[in-house]
């Protein structure tokens, strides 16, 4: 067996880790995949390890004491999801080294395993494909290879080999990473830390430079959240809470129950207890509620709340991260044409990647479709034109575009398009098969429209008065009435709506809530065996669209 690890060496290792992460933290920041989930992973992890590495030097202390000291420093400085997990890794390592003066590789390896287990414990719902997985894989790989001949350098080489391999596997475990074409940022930060620790193992004397704490205030762009913005991601909220005897019975305090409480108020919860200090990281829409609730248990030592929609200014990075992968191409993409916010949203929530604005009153061009194809970046793209006048432009775009297999499903109404898309399951199918299936689903669908008549005339045996509402389907007029609900109701009768399974009623821009409700009630009363669903389509031109499936 090789030399032993003492307190001085371990302290030097952590410093080395901090320095190397500092040098590379821009690269780690750049790996953030979410709009801005959590601030920047690189900064957060650096601030965490820095507050461990800058804890006052402890010359002459044993390994156990030094590691406890460092872990405590990290606890106080931990921020961000990955930072908090990192601090738990070191807390676990410290627990594994408790009372140890000097550790051999085997003891050290076991302590690292403890670090991994402790990190898993701290997270309410451990997610694979993150720093958790990367660290666990590495300590288990390197641990298995320890034998009588293993040197400390060899052990660290094994750790780093597997850290990197596991990091490259993270996109296979976590779809968000694959879609963003990156590896996990927390895992990447860990790679830099362990590489820095290795420098110390090789005898490099690490000198710490005071980089100062990067204040998040000056590198965020507050213009990214304006008076028109809608809070979508909530607040990243972090605090250290000192449990108070005056408030609770410390012996009965259960961190699991406390965590459940926090989880009910937000997500991405990481929390743990260290003596009478509780560290919590949570994403929540209502930080005030969280603070009020937890203050029942103690008082705050530190507190940080950040709006997650504020975009941090991009750090300019010269060297691209070597693990960065090509933007992943989707297997299937969907383009649908619709107008009206409600209708567009319906298509989006059904899984349309791009909704091209258009329809009866405004037909999109082939160029509009090609732009949508470019954005989607998929092997196969299905197009739902949803209007007879749009099908040709879509087909022409499909002919012109050769970077994807494009299939146009010739849906003539939004009803056909919606119905086909809601039943379609493209998984495991070729573009041809999926398009064929979608076309099949669209076949049985009847779409009726109610619009205001533009002139007085007689059509299909119905006398039409300007200003009245007419009900029509497939270019045949079935009803005319000064009341739009009556026009819709008669149209339904003529189309034998009661024989269908489902009627989806899309209220247009021109229909009031009261009118929509009146029609809904009337149809529900009339067609007892049919399921009737009312949606706000917000479409122009058609006061009501009735989708009969």
């Amino acid at each position, binding site marked *: 067996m090789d030399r032993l690890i003492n307190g001085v060496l371990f302290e030097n290792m952590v410093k080395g880790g901090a320095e190397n992460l500092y040098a590379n933290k821009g690269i780690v920041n750049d790996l953030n995949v979410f709009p801005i989930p959590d601030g920047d992973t690189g900064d957060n992890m650096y601030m965490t390890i820095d507050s461990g590495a800058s804890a006052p030097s402890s010359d002459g202390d044993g390994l156990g004491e030094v590691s406890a000291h460092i872990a405590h420093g990290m606890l106080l400085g931990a921020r961000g999801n990955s930072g908090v997990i990192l601090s738990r890794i070191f807390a676990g390592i410290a627990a594994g080294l408790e009372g140890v003066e000097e550790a051999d590789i085997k003891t050290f390896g076991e302590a690292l395993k403890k670090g991994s287990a402790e990190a898993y414990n701290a997270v309410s719902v451990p997610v694979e494909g993150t720093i958790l997985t990367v660290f666990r894989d590495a300590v288990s790989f390197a641990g298995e290879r320890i034998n009588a001949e293993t040197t400390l350098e060899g052990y660290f080489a094994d750790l780093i080999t597997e850290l990197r391999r596991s990091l490259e596997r993270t996109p296979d475990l976590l779809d968000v990473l694959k879609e963003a074409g990156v590896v996990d940022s927390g895992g990447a930060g860990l790679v830099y830390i362990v590489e820095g620790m290795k420098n110390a193992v090789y005898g490099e004397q690490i000198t710490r430079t005071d980089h100062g704490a990067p204040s998040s205030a000056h590198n965020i762009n507050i213009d990214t959240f304006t008076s028109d913005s809608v809070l979508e991601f909530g607040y990243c909220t972090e605090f250290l809470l000192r449990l108070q005897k005056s408030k609770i019975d410390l012996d009965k305090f259960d961190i*699991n129950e406390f965590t459940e409480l926090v989880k*009910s108020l937000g997500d991405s919860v990481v929390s743990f207890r260290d003596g009478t200090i509780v560290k919590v990281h949570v994403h929540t829409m209502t930080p005030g509620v969280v603070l009020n609730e937890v203050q029942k248990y103690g008082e705050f030592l530190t507190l940080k709340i950040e709006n997650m929609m504020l975009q941090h200014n991009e750090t300019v990075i010269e060297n691209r991260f070597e693990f960065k992968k090509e933007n992943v191409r989707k297997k299937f993409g*969907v383009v649908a044409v619709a107008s009206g916010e409600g209708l567009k949203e*319906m298509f989006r929530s*059904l899984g349309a990647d791009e909704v091209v604005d258009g329809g009866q009153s405004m037909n999109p061009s082939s160029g509009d479709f090609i732009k949508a194809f470019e954005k989607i970046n998929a092997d196969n793209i299905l197009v739902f034109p949803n209007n007879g006048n749009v099908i040709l432009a879509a087909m022409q775009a499909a002919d012109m575009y050769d970077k994807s297999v494009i299939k146009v499903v010739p849906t003539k109404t939004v009803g056909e398009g919606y119905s086909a898309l*809601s039943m379609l399951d493209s998984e495991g199918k070729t573009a041809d098969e999926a398009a064929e299936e979608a076309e099949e689903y669209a076949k049985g669908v009847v779409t009726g429209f109610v619009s205001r008549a533009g002139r007085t005339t007689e059509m299909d045996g119905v006398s039409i008065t300007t200003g009245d509402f007419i009900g029509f389907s497939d270019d045949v007029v079935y009803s005319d009435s000064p009341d739009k609900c009556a026009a819709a109701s008669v149209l339904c009768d003529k189309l034998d709506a009661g024989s269908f399974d489902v009627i989806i009623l899309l209220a247009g821009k021109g229909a009031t809530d009261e009118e929509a409700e009146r029609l809904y009630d009337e149809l529900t009363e009339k067609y007892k065996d049919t*399921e009737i*669903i009312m949606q706000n389509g917000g479409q122009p031109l058609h006061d009501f669209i009735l989708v009969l*499936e």
Partner: protein
Amino acid sequence: MFVIFTDTDTDLTPKRAADYGYHLISMPYSYDGKTIYPYEDFDEFKDKEFYDMLRGGVLPTTSAISKEKYLEYFEPYFKNGDDILYVHFSEAMTMTFTNMRAAVSELHEKYPAANFYTVDTKGITIESYIIVLEIGELYKAGKSAQEIIEWAKDNVLNYSCYLFADDLKFFKRSGRVSGFSAAMGTLIGVRPIITMNAEGKMVSIGKERGKKNALNRLLAYMEEKGEDVKNHPIIIGHTDDDADVEEISAMIRAKYGEDTNIEVVAANPTAGSHCGPNCLGISFRSVKRD
């Protein structure tokens, strides 16, 4: 002596538990900062109230219970010299059993003579419920823990459950159903059909347009996969969907005879937090699950 346990995720109520002598482990859910343990924090589950709250936009979360909780449940019986058989909901859907094992191994050191057995129903709500009832009968008939475990090995997969979902928001959020294509979102008028597979996981197996078709499809599975259904319990479970309960009961009776025995259960709130309102399912004795 041995005592039997199950958990509230199997839909067993204290009243039905008493019919067989089951002890109940309460699986919690949380919302608005409150964590609620079914039948510990309330006596009777008011399903209508609960699912109306979900309709109103509340999205509860659920969590694993702690090791300490398991210690509280199990220790008194081990102390007493009893063995325990725990018939639980699907291990493939939860992490809570890690805490359970930690508790049991701690208790084993203290009570080395005590035996702890488990049966994984590879289901949740009515998929588990039907198995819990069958095992309850065996227990009442005086079968030993070994005999019950042998029975479970051969029979657990012979109970199937098919259900339809309404608002996929709940399922998608919980991440507990596989097979939904990534694109699938809010489906209007279309109901995904879900079953529990042999691994004890929920999988989506297709969609039906309109409620009638969805109900017909559930019944079709019962006819296709059912095996000696009339001599075993038939369970209808729902998340506040009374009208459809009536309808499918009538359909089952029309097919299997007016004397067919059907038990209707309200899906427990913890599992219901992951399903949302307006879901309906049936479970029955069947050929082996896929």
